[in-house]
């Protein structure tokens, strides 16, 4: 769970950095010929957010890390 949260967050950070490095051309759609690297980083950016959510969003992961990993009590449930 720690791996899922840390790797997907890192993936997002890398893609975000790439978007910043692309500067103004980061606004071009993935696949657009005039986008740097054919818009590969735009695709990575959109995907990295999807991966962050898929299989349990960050808050779900945080709960599991806190409860199973650190042994904290579970959230109050009704």
């Amino acid at each position, binding site marked *: 769970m720690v791996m899922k949260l840390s790797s997907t967050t890192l993936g997002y950070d890398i893609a975000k950095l790439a978007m910043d490095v692309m500067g103004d*051309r*980061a606004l071009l759609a993935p696949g657009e010929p005039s986008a740097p690297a054919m818009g590969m980083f735009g695709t990575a950016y959109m995907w990295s957010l999807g991966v962050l*959510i898929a299989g349990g969003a960050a808050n779900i992961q945080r709960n599991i890390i806190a409860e199973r990993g650190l042994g904290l009590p579970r959230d109050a449930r009704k």
Partner: protein
Amino acid sequence: MDFGLSEEQVLLKDTIRRYLETECPPPRVRTIMEAPSGHDPELWLGLAGLGVLGLHVPVEHGGSGLELLDAALAAEELGWACTPGPFLACALATVALVAAGNHEVGTRWLPAIAQGDAIVTFALGEEGDEWDAGRLATRARGGTLTGRKPLVPYAEIADAILVAAQDDDGPGLWLVERGAPGLEVTAQRTTDMTRRVAAVALTGAPATRVATGRTATDRARDAGLVLLAADAYGGARRCLEMTVRYVLTREQFGQPIGAFQGVKHQLADLATELDPALSLWWYAAHAFDRIRDRSERHAAIAKAHLTDLFDRVARVTTELHGGIGFTWEYDLHLWFRRSIFDRAFLGEAGYHRARAAELAGW
């Protein structure tokens, strides 16, 4: 001293909000953004009817003669509604034309912009993230222009393009009309489908000189930075509001997910960041209108901070939605995409932070 909006400004915002809620809800946003032009003439004339397109057009040219702050309040509402269309393009052109003070060209184009009869855009940026009027490669010679502008908003449907370029005497501003020989416009696909750009290639295209020097170009760029900041603020507010509504209805473990502290704290953090950011772009707009020597730097700061914030709000609120936030059917991604344009256009946040530091003499 009162830092709030005037009664007229509050009324202006309310009027635009109500109009867009009726005429430009998300299904309409999608219809327009999926059309080839990304522009809806009917919606555009409606905005013109409300006076939105002529807010900062001088009264003698058929506008309301108001200031950038008023146009920025409109931009905030357009960002809130994720309104597609060439608002930014025409606003940049308006500021450039007003700052140029060229009566003949102003008389020809400003009334048409205000009435929604003409789309005029502004071509500044060049290859290599170049947004500085003093470093442009596009050249003017003998009444013609030659150069490339890779990211020109709505150039495809523009009746005229204001082009920042240089001649032997330095920077200046020229105007090229639609269909001019040597003008080639190539549509570019953008991640944010509500704001289109095209690549403009000029090869000896006949052009009219509009202004000498870089003032008109710099003023248009600074206005654009403030308008993007305002758009980002409106968009971020909408993301937050949609998400608050969502976490109140979506249940997990027998209660709305908004009852969980983790969710509450993330939303509270975003609200805490957004509130003070409002005065940042209000002040940048005010400085543009009234405190000229602070205008450039505050426009840069507002653009950098607000577009960064919009990006963060869009990301966190998408995450809080879980899987549904990432589907094409759910509307949130429209704003996530919009945040990408706001961040990148006219230069990204880091570029403007560096400029702000330089302008402060750091």
